[in-house]
């Protein structure tokens, strides 16, 4: 879904005070019923990540960690049936999953043989946490967080890969022959878009050599980053190409079409291929 910058800003504004929870997502959905949930979630997620980047250091300061941990301990003890960790996270405006990580990390400091690996495993599988109460709280946090956490990561990962599969399907449907990332890598390409078309096509009048699939919303920040790290690199090697932001993008960003980078939010329908069925030269000359 292509959004105008104004629409996008409105959504962003609305997310400013939300917490990354199921409830907040519901609020967002109700506020913008015309936008798809994936777009809203993607925007919210990106915005929330930015917010987190800004504030994370504050939460990771040793004294904050200690205070969170102590609060958790005391409250969990006082009100065992209340989701205290989740509430604490919302109160200090930290992603619940991240709060869980902070707390478990702190919890593990008192244990022997704690490593990052162990930490990650515990977050992914709270039942591994020796403290049963903590396990419950942690699970409550990670399962309710819609922006962070192992489950969210996994969903994002799945979406990305599914999008690529869908893209390949579409290409095959249209009988367009291509090389995918893996094939390119084995050939020794230093930068590999998701798809390189063996025979280029024209989409809405623009030549397309490669297609990159992005299972996220294209906002200014992420698009800029992608341009610098990926899209221009592809252009530098393979010529003009197409980027599909499956979850939409800010319409104004699609400004490099003439320079060789085209943005779409779905698989394009206006595709022109090399058509040799009737040789254009012949027919033209005959008629002319």
């Amino acid at each position, binding site marked *: 879904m292509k959004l105008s910058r104004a629409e996008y800003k409105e959504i962003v504004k609305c997310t400013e005070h939300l917490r990354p929870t199921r409830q907040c997502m519901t609020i967002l959905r109700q506020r913008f019923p015309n936008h798809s949930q994936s777009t809203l979630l993607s925007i919210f997620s990106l915005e929330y990540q930015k917010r987190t980047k800004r504030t994370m250091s504050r939460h990771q300061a040793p004294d904050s960690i200690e205070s969170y941990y102590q609060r958790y301990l005391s409250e969990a003890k006082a009100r065992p049936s209340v989701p205290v960790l989740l509430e604490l996270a919302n109160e200090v405006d930290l992603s619940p999953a991240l709060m869980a990580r902070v707390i478990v990390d702190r919890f593990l400091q008192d244990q022997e043989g704690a490593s990052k690996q162990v930490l990650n495993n515990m977050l992914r*599988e709270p039942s591994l946490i020796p403290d049963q109460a903590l396990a419950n709280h942690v699970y409550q946090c990670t*399962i309710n967080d819609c922006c962070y956490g192992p489950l969210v990561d*996994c969903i994002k990962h799945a979406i990305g890969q599914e999008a690529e599969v869908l893209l390949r399907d579409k290409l095959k449907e249209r009988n367009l022959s291509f090389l995918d990332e893996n094939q390119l890598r084995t050939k020794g*390409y230093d930068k590999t878009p998701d798809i390189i078309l063996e025979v280029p096509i024209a989409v809405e009048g623009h030549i397309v050599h490669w297609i990159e699939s992005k299972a996220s919303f294209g906002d200014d920040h992420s698009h800029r980053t992608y341009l610098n790290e990926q899209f221009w690199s592809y252009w530098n090697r393979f010529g003009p190409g197409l980027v599909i932001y499956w979850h939409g993008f800010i319409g104004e960003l699609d400004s490099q079409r003439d320079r060789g980078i085209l943005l779409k939010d779905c698989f394009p329908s206006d595709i022109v291929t090399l058509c040799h069925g009737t040789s254009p030269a012949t027919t033209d000359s005959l008629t002319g």
Partner: protein
Amino acid sequence: MLSCFWSAPQGNAVATFARLLPFWSAPNSKQQAECQTAPAQTRMAALLESLLQKEVEAIKAVEWLKHDGDSDSLAWCKPLKIERQEFVPFLLNFLREQSCSTLTHGPATPAKTPSHPRVSQPSQQGPGFSSELRGGCRSTGPGTGPRSASRVQLFSSTPSLSPGAEWDTTQPPSGSHCLGGISALSSPSFSSARSPAPASTSRHTPSERRSTQRASLGDFMPSPPELQHHHSLSLGVQQQPRGRRRSAGMGGQGRQGGGRGVFQTEEVGPGRSEGGGRKGRGGGANKMGDPAVSPPMAQMTTLVQLNLTNLEDFPPMGMSHASPALHTKPSRRINPTPVSAERPHSRPKTCFTSTPFSTRPSSPPPVPEAVTGAIEGSITGALNVGSPPLSLQEERELLKRVKCKRAEQVGSPLPTSLDPCTPTKPGLRPVSGSKMTPVTLGSCPDPSKVTLTSELDLLADLYCTCISENLVPNVFLELFFVLQLLTSRTPAVTEEEDKDLSMGTLDVLERGYLSKVHNCVYFSVRVLENQFELVSHLDKDTLRLLAENERVTCFSPSLRNRLTLAQDASTAKVSPSVDTFIHSVPFQPATDNRSNFSSDKAFHTFKKQRDIFYEVLREWEDFHKEPRWEFEAELGNRVRGMVNQLNSTGNHSHFARLFLKQLVQMCKGPRALGSPGDTPDADLLGMLGADSLGRLKRLEERLIQPQGILGPCPPPAFPGHQEFFRDFLKTASCCQLNQHLKDSLCQQLLQLDEVSVLAPVVSSTEGEGDMEQQDEKQRFSSVLLLARLLAKFLGYISFLPYQTSERPSREIQEATANLRSKSMSVLDVCAVLRSCVRRRRTILTVPWLVEFLSMLDFTGPFLLCYRTVLGLLLSLYRRMVLSREGEVCYLNQLLMVAVLGWLFQIPVIPEELFFTTDFAVAVELEESQTNVQGLDCLPLVDQQLLYTCCPFLGEFRKLLAAFVAGSSARGGGLIRKITPTSAELRGTPTTTRSQQKRQVDLEQAFFHNQPPSLRRTVEFVAERVGSNCVKHMKVTLVCELVRGGERLLREGLISPGANPLILNDSICAQLCDGGQEALERATRFCSEKGPEAIRVLLPDETSPAVLTTSENITKRLATEKAYSWLSSNITALVKREWKTKFDRVMKSLPSPEASGVEGSGLVAGAAAVSQEQSRTPKRDMGKEEAVTSCPPDCPHSAPLPSDVLVEIKEVLSIAVGPRSEKEALTCLQLNALLGKVGDTLSCKKFSFPMPEQMLIRCTVLLACKLVSCVYQERSTTQRTSSQLDTTVGSIGVNMGQHPCGTVLTPCPDKFRLF
């Protein structure tokens, strides 16, 4: 003898001068020089005089010019000891001087665009003039960068070289280089007074140098040109104005004045100069309109007034009487300069600088001394103050004589002229205000008003001989001059003045041969008639403009007719080439993947470098045209950072390859080579169409403004994207990179130089000869353009270390040359040139060699190898006489003459090169082997290529167009012509065109990421198949047709009363119709053969899609090729074949029996063709994606894992809580969810390990959750739990073993299942 011109170390000035030009002069000739230089001018003046007075037959002189030296006809001139090389510059200068008043004063009044001084009437400026200079300066701006800057600098620094550059001296020494010219404008000494009237000043700039007086006159009279006098005899009065003019001139002429210093120190009186200077500085007060420009003395004012009136016709001559310094300084207008002592030296130079006209130093002598230094000072000293060298005695005498004459004249004319003038002034002033008026008023050349016809004829003959014998350094410069004369605008001349000028009262040499527009046009038309062949090779637009030029029509209807005819033959037009959309160099695993790098680090560093390179390029594209943007400041650090990484990883060769490929990709096309000032015609045409006045006006402005006339000798430049590459190299300044680039460029160049271009089939009466010839021509043109591009960059890199912004002093130059002579030049230019002459491949080699040499630094030409090669080129140029029927094709020659002429005008090439005899003699070119058939005799160059290589030829068109624009008030022909063109353009349907273009783009894009060999193969096959197709048609279809025709003929002849001729016609028509079948057959042929060959030639592992596409492209290209040839030639071919057959039949008629006529060939051919090939090769279609574990008939319609994950997450989070009262899960929901999970897990299409595991884990967690609920509400959940059991069971998880089973302690009371 010639050499002494430059070498004579006489007197201070001369000595200095001589030192500067050391190297061309023969050491022993110095003494000779001393005694001969001065007289030489006199002798030549005498020669010309005797010619003009018909004491010597003109034809003899022409003969003499044609055959230097030996012929008997020259006996007459032997006593004069005149070398023709001396005479040529003399003649050229004479003509320039003659016409300068005309050109200068012209009402040119391009006044239309006062704000754009340089736009000012081109016609007024000499060739190469200020406009050119300015252009140079301007262009340097962003595009030309350092190089151009240095050029300009050159000019400004020229003074050192040429004494004539005195004017420069007035400028503050600090003058910035690049802006040298411009700054000059504003420099206090000159400009102030006139600045208010930019148009007029600028216009006159060129002339100023030539004659201070004239300039001053013009300035003085801000009033309309009509008032101004070309030949005014006026006097010192004008000094002030002169000052102004000068200043303007300086600014404008920066380049020329400086670069090709003008030598005329002439009789600039000290008084005058002072006046000029003073005026200039304090002149701000003077207003344009004021005739009496702040005259210090009352007398002056009156004088001025008087003069003004007089001035109209006699600007130069009269000067002397008014000025106090009359005696010391002859203020003679006739600067033809034969008289002055310095001239001999300066002369030749002036002539041949790119700005031949500007001979006069605009600044007064005294000033120069102060500021500058030695040279000018010394020269002026010699002139004004100092003791003149003895050798000058003779000249002095001459001078005196002239002065006396003049004095006599002055006395009488002045009073007479006063009367008429005075009244005119006031009236005129108002007119002057409106700049347009003068144009119309002034320029109405009338054949009946031409005076001195026979003398003009003689001059034209001499001049034409010089041109056609390549005695002039740049043929096109002269042609430009001629067109300037044609388009000159002069104020009306009164009868009396007329008389004065033309009548015998004046010295023969001082008559105003070209002082009136009538005469100028007459002369110009004569020359054009004479040089018609040259002219006829100009582009269509130029020819059209010429043919439509009312002056041409008026003076020579026959010339107009010939021009009109020539127009049709002309093919050259500036066609904007298709912009290829791909701008990056494709990544090719064969050269770019890891195995090509020494280490991972190098590989990954290069990955980044490639991206940075393009990042920089993109940024440049976006911003370089913005006003304050500078490459160095904006991109310098990034470029250097990247280059440093190159150094640390040793990736230079990789980067050099990328760099060069990108360079070639972006700059090879003809468009990229176009001159910077050119705007696409289409754009221009778009503005026409409506005939509203406003549009017309805008059109006019466009014609003049954006396409500023740069003159035919623009300095070397890096147009378009070339600028980026140049700046990149300069900024990177990385010696390793440069070395790699040099290696690579050299190798590529030499390879290109060896490219074999086939001669067209000898019996090219046959049709397909033309086709192959076309191909070869195209190939040649692309090779040539590429070689030129590479050579320019090779030159740039090679001479980069030696580039200086100013010409180094003589000593430094010598020392440097000596030093550098020890090491090898990057390219053995002499060997390359000699070899190409020997093998007759000059048409390929010379143009790129010229590009290479145009990049020389100041010292470069003094190194033996370059000096030699310049000499060789010079002798080559001399031999390349266009009119002579040689083995070299005309257009080939024309291209070489054009590029060589251009090279000789480049600032770094020493001016004295051209007229030094010993130079050409010293280096003899080996005769080419006569039995070798090289490229030179192949018709390879066409007008398109000529104009691509020499965009400056478009200056003729601009000049003429500007003239039309200027005179449009009377309804120029331009508009009439253009409108239909634009209508045509608009009419064409854009949609189909864009579709076609898209297909072409797609094809190009297809090759982009394929290995280069694929493209080569396809193009080669297409070319061959197309060609074979044509041959095939000839032996099959055409033969069949002819045989069929023969049968018809014989049958027809049998019938009684048959008329063979009528039969012939009807059969022929029939056959031609039949010939159309060729097109269809050709299509079939190509469709069959092309793909066949492609299949054989491409590697087996080529993927089907690539193969099919390649086949199709081959098919299309081949068909197109065959088709285009056949459609235009088949009829002629059939006719020709038929005629042969018909003749034969008619001859053999007595024996009526003809050979068996069978259509066997036809049958066979048809059979062959009818075998429609439709099968595509069976190739390995590539393995289907491994979807192995899906159930047999899986429709892949299961929900996506991500969707299921999202849903299960939702459910889990509700289950885990916290949740609101509203949130609840039903068994139905759970059932549905679990059903989805099952489906999803069973279809593997979208299945990836990580999500799959997560899905499993979540399911288990959900199960645990449910199980824990079972305790609470066993009855309700029974169904669900059993369902869950099956699902979980099916994925092989043993719930009992799962930790969740024991861990989970949900809040049973809150978990409700409905």
